[in-house]
Structure formats: C-alpha cells, structure tokens
C-alpha cells in the first residue's frame, strides 16, 4: 500500500487559552486508502493528544465528523486522501461558532430542527391492534429521499444564506418538514406550514443549490425547499384568489 507524506493543517482554537484560532500543521505519513479522519486519528494518537474533533461511525452515517476540508464542507470519514494534494487544510464547519478546534456549536440547528415538528402527525389515529398503515411503494418513494438526512450540517455550511441570515431555518430542517408533509400517513402539514413558510423559512432561500451539491446522502434539500415554495405559493393563490375553495 502506497504511503504519502501529507501536511495536515488544522485550525486550532481553545477558548481557555486562545484569543483567536490559529493554524497548526502536522506532517502525517498517510496510506493512500485513508480518509482525512484517519489522519486526524493518527495525529490524536501519536502527535498531539490535545486535538479535539467529533467522530464515531467511520462509515458516513452518524453525521459527527462534518468539517471544512480545503474549504469544502465534507465528512472527514468520506474525504479520501488520494483525492487531495500533499497539503490538506482542515477547519471546523463554517457558519457555526467554534467551541474548540474542529468542534462547533450546533445548538442553533438542533433548535430549528425541533421547531418544524419533525414527527408524524397522523392523518387518522390508528390503534396498534389494527396493525400498520398501508403505504404503497410509490407512496414511500414520495418522501424516502428526505428521510436519508444524517443531520451532518454540511448543507448549513454550504448555504451562504444561512451565513448571512442566521435566522434562516435552513436546508436540513425544512427538508425534514417536507419529508413528513409528503408522507401519506401524515396530516400535519398546516402545523408545519406556519413555521417553514414564514420569512425565516423557505423564503430566505434563493436557490443557490450549494446544499444539494455538498449533501453526502443525496437528500437534495434544495429541491425540497423549492417544492415547499411551490406548494406555499399555490396555497397563497388559493387563499387570495379562490377563497371559496376549501383547503
């Protein structure tokens, strides 16, 4: 297996000792099949035990290790060393406050995620004894893609709107609302609509599309947001031009 000397430049910040973040460089002999996370683990175990970052699954499903790699939001466990030159810059996800080193404060996202009521609000209640709701494969397909979000927040880092307008509810949270809206078992759309169709909601989005480009799970949040816009627009016309038509 081929090895390569790679200079890993990491943005370091410790609130107890630093006024500003600084770049620290480590030289790591990396196997070509490694991912950036392997290099960070090597540093942590062998060069500098004080380096802090989040990680767990190493298979791109837990969503812990999102970071900026050469300026691009990536999962460190899916950023392959062989795709990079001999210098790799690693920074915490942008648009989020840095807590320490590569660890960001994600409470803002968590609060927004919870605010959109991301759970099934059943169209009709069904006792357990009646078994499962019937849902055909084509009904499942309508929302399946939007269930795949791993909450890694790369989309928030990619979204310039979230950077400029921190109140924006943002791609992942609106996508999960759309996921439940599209679910044949759900009847809660109007509950979510007042949040996601507000000015901090979907109308902050100007369809840059960066969220979908960086999404490691191909959720296509940009698509979800445009669909919400379209549906909200139709709502508006119905309400104002055809008030006699019931929802």
């Amino acid at each position, binding site marked *: *297996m081929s090895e390569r000397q790679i200079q890993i430049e990491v943005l370091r910040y410790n609130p107890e000792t630093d006024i500003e973040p600084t770049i620290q460089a480590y030289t790591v002999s990396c196997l070509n099949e490694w991912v950036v996370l392997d290099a960070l683990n090597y540093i942590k175990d062998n060069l500098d*035990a004080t380096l802090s970052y989040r990680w767990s699954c190493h298979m791109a499903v837990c969503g812990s290790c999102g970071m900026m790699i050469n300026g691009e939001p990536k999962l460190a466990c899916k950023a392959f060393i062989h795709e990079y030159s001999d210098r790799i810059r690693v920074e915490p996800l942008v648009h989020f406050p840095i807590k320490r080193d590569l660890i960001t404060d994600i409470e803002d996202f968590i609060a927004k995620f919870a605010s959109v009521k991301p*759970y*099934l609000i059943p169209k009709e209640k069904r006792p*357990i004894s009646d078994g499962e709701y019937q849902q055909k494969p084509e009904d499942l397909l309508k929302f399946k893609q939007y*269930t795949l979000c791993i909450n890694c927040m790369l989309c928030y880092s990619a979204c310039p709107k979230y950077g400029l307008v921190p109140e924006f509810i943002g791609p992942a949270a609106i996508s999960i609302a759309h996921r439940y809206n599209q679910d044949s078992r759900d009847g809660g759309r109007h509950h979510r609509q007042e949040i996601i169709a507000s000015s901090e909601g979907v109308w902050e989005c100007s369809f840059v599309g960066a969220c979908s480009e960086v999404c490691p799970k191909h959720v296509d949040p940009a698509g979800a947001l445009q669909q919400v816009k379209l549906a909200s627009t139709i709502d508006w016309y119905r309400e104002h031009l055809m008030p006699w038509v019931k929802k």
Partner: protein
Amino acid sequence: MDIIQTDIAIIGAGGAGLRAAITLAEANQKLRIALISKVYPMRSHTCAAEGGAAGVSKSDDSLDCHFEDTVGGGDWLCDQDAVEYFIKEAPRELIQLEHWGCPWSREQDGSVAVRPFGGMKIKRTWFAADKSGFHILHTLFQTSLKYPSIQRFDEYYALDLIEDDGRCYGLTALEICSGQIKHFEAGAVIIAAGGAGRMFQFTTNGAIKTGDGMSLAYRAGVPLKDMEFIQYHPTGLPNTGILLTEGCRGEGGILINKDGRRYLQDYGMGPETPVGKPALKTMELGPRDRLSQAFWHEQQKGNTLSTQWGDCVLLDMRHLGEKKINERLPFVRDLSISYLGMDPVKDLIPIRPVVHYCMGGIHTDINAATPLLGLFAAGECACVSINGANRLGSNSLTELLVFGRRAAMSAIACIQSIPRLGNKAALTAKAEDSQSRILALVHKSRGSETISGIRKEMMQTLEEGAGIYRTGESLSKTCEKIAELRHRYTSIALNDKTKVFNTELLQALELSSMLNCAEAVAVCGRDRKESRGAHQRLDFTARDDTNFLKHTLAYYHPKDPPRIEYLDVVITKSRPGVRDYSGVRK
C-alpha cells in the same frame, strides 16, 4: 457542584434510551426525564445497523417459531421467559414504530415487507432498505421531540452511579463542553449506553462504543453477565471493518472461498442451495457464529484469499442485478464502492469476520432491572438474556424497543413503590468523590504510559486471546495482560489540562471502561471450559450442558480480576438440543 433534579435519568440516547424516554413521557407527562448522552442522539450507534428488526407479523409465521429460532440460535443460553416476552412484544413495537413514521420498506399491497435473515426459519425481518437502524434511530429521535418533558443533556459523559445502601439515587456526569461535573439526583436510572466492540481493533463498531454503561454498572457492584460471548459478523469490509449487512445474504448473496466453492456446505450448513434462491436457515442464511467459525476453518486450510488487508473470502451479489441491489442494498453498494473501490453489481467483494456485538452485558432480569435497586438497563449494554451465546441478526434492533420500553415501565413502578430516602450527606459525599477522581486524573502531572499505547495493547491481546477460536492458554495470557494493563493505566497522565471539550480526558475514561469490560471478557472466557455459540474453545470443543448451561456473572474488583459466579439459565419449554442448519426439513 450543580445538582440537577430529575425523576428518571437515562444514560444513552440511542434506540433503547430514546424508546425508554418516550415511554416515560407518554406514561406521565409530569415525570421529569433526563436523557443523558455523550453524543447527540442521532450520532448513537443504532444508526449503523443495516439489516432490519425481527418480529412475527405475517400469517405464515408464529411466536413459537421465532422462539425456537432465537433459543436454538443462542445455543440454549437464552433465558426463555425473557425470550417469550420479547417475541410477544416484538410485533407491537415494530408497528408502533411504523405509526411514528418509520419508513419501512413495503410490499406491493402496502403492507410492511419482510426479508430472510440468518438463523430464522421464516422471513420475519422488517427492514428499511439497508438502513434500518438509521431509520429506527431517527424516527425515535424525531418522535422524542414531541415531548417537552424529555430534557436532553447532549454531550454529557456519565461518570459514576451514586448509590447508597443498595439503591441507586442518580449519577454524576461531565458536561463535555464546559468540563463541569453535574450531580443528577434521580429516583431511578436506566442505562442504555450500548456495547463495547471498540475493545477490539477490527470492529464494525463506532468510536463511541467503549462499554461505558457496562463499566458504570460494573463498578457500582452490578455483575456483568456472559461477557465471553462476542459476536463476529461474518461479512465486514477487510480494510475498514465496515459492516455489509446480513441482508446481502438474505437477498441472495453467496459466500465463496478462493476456489469458488460455497464452503459453508462443508461445515454442517449444507447441502448447497441454488444460487439466487436462498433457503432459510441454511448455507448463507446460517447463524453468524457458525459462519464466522467456518471462515476460521477455511483460513486454517488455506482456502482463503490472501489480500493486502489479510485473509478474505468473497461475497458474490452479482446475480442479484443492479435494480435489486439499488432497491434493497443501496448503502452496501455505496459503502463497497466508496471504501473498497468495488461495486457489488460487477465485483466479488472480499470480506472477513469482524467484531460486531456483545451478547453479554449488565445483568438484568426480565423486567430490565439490575440487582441494584433503582437501576435498570436495556439494549446492547444489557444482558437479559435473549441472545444467549449467539444473537440472531435482526433481534437486537427489536430488543432495543422491547426492553427500552420495559425498562421505562419498571423504572416508573420503582419510583412509585420504593421510597426515595437516600442519605443526603452520603450521596453528596459520593458525588464529591466522583468529582475528585476526575480532577485528579486531569491534573496528574507526570505519567509513564499513554492512552493510545495501552489501548493498542488491549486490542492486540483480545484479538490474540479472545477471537473466534480460543484456548485456555490464550485466554489466561490475555487475562494476565489485561490485569497488567489495568495496573499500568494508573500511570497515564493527560497532556490536555483544559476544560472545554477535553477529548483526551474522554478517551482516558473510555479506555478505563474498555479495560474493565475486556477483563470480564477474558476471565469469563477462561473459566467457561466448553464451546457454545460464539465462545469456541479448541481445548474444550463440545458444549457441556452439565456444567455450563449457566450464565457467567463477573463482579468487579477495583484492583484484582473479577470474581466469577454462575447462574442457572431459565428454561421454560425448550431443552437444549442440536443446532441444525443443514436445511433438512423435519
């Protein structure tokens, strides 16, 4: 020290912890629930489970059949009353999850689809493509957001249980972002903190699975049960240990050795079945212990393929076709392409067995209660035991749900019936002790050992001594080595003395948890002088029901190896018999 008052504290916010929290919130909205986890809930390792969750739901299936499969699969080490309860509750829990929105894969008629799984005689595994655990976890997490009474303490690391006079009154936990230690006063505590697969170098488990919950209970005097039983999953990617679900074989994938032979037929799991038409409970749909052991034998015979990542056999899914793979196994395809550069649609995928699951864990009874009053446990960290000596694939996701809920109900009963009259001064003193222990660890100035060094040696000795096949000698060596490492652990010192997100401190604490669990694995294994399920001894090759139809209980000692006791297995209706995976129908 800050005191946080709560009625019930849950440690761990994966499948079992979230299921428990929701049960509590639904039972009584006035209950104060503290859900404490060292990671945000959606990072919990439940998310990595792929294949599915078992439960009887179709007309061709029966509770008895699921019972027989589970008990036989567990080589009769399961407590059969617990298995009966588990199997009866399983369908209800899976439907409940469906009602909460879990995107289960469907049949054409709109009912939930089921797929075949190893060791199961009937198709009964509910699945959401090959991301079943991921969807279960996210469905539970999202549903939990409905309940304001669930107060989450994300990124809090549980340090010590606070008990007095044989009853648990809460815990101390480290707020990772501030480095402050908090004292949670609780009427009951539920541990749902997952397994300890990270003791091994080559594992499917995420970095967080370091046996913290097991160690927490163990240090508080609760025995760990059946720790010698470590499950090797037969199909892991050889370079990373990434799991390729049993669903690969459930959908029809086959295993071949370097000569192209479907070698499982040579190990009591044949005759060969037609390619692409998997027969239940035989060949590739045999149980995990048998498949991993067959690999070992092939390796001994020189029938494995030697690769840059070690010896492998091959998983062939090409005959399934691109459409089926994309529909049923999209994640497997993505993982194989991304991490190995091979596409199961076109390529044979090299795989080898990889440490996956701890059958053992915190000793609980059928009510998820531990011997320590007020302490409950559920999920992989617990041992009820429904998995016995070998867990069947797709029983553990269901177990999270069934026993997560059961633990919650037991905890409610506990705080209602057993008075909460701890000696305040004694509890405070214990919390202070816990804090002092951590501060001493952080501020110790000089050390001769490193965390990564000890961890490496621990992994190595477990791999050598407690792998798929073991001997008394190898296990004794491992016992000695781990005792030595536990001693050397006291000589580590941290480089990082700061408070905010001191991940080196976390690693030190996690290493301590793993060492405790590892010692239990080795000592329990050394003393079990028989072969059963996932515990295979080359020096005692037969199952010995006379002496070892028993659970091993390991009791913690702060310095010495654990004291071992035995407990009879509960048998209700199935006497130990022969595990038959030959595919011959009786």
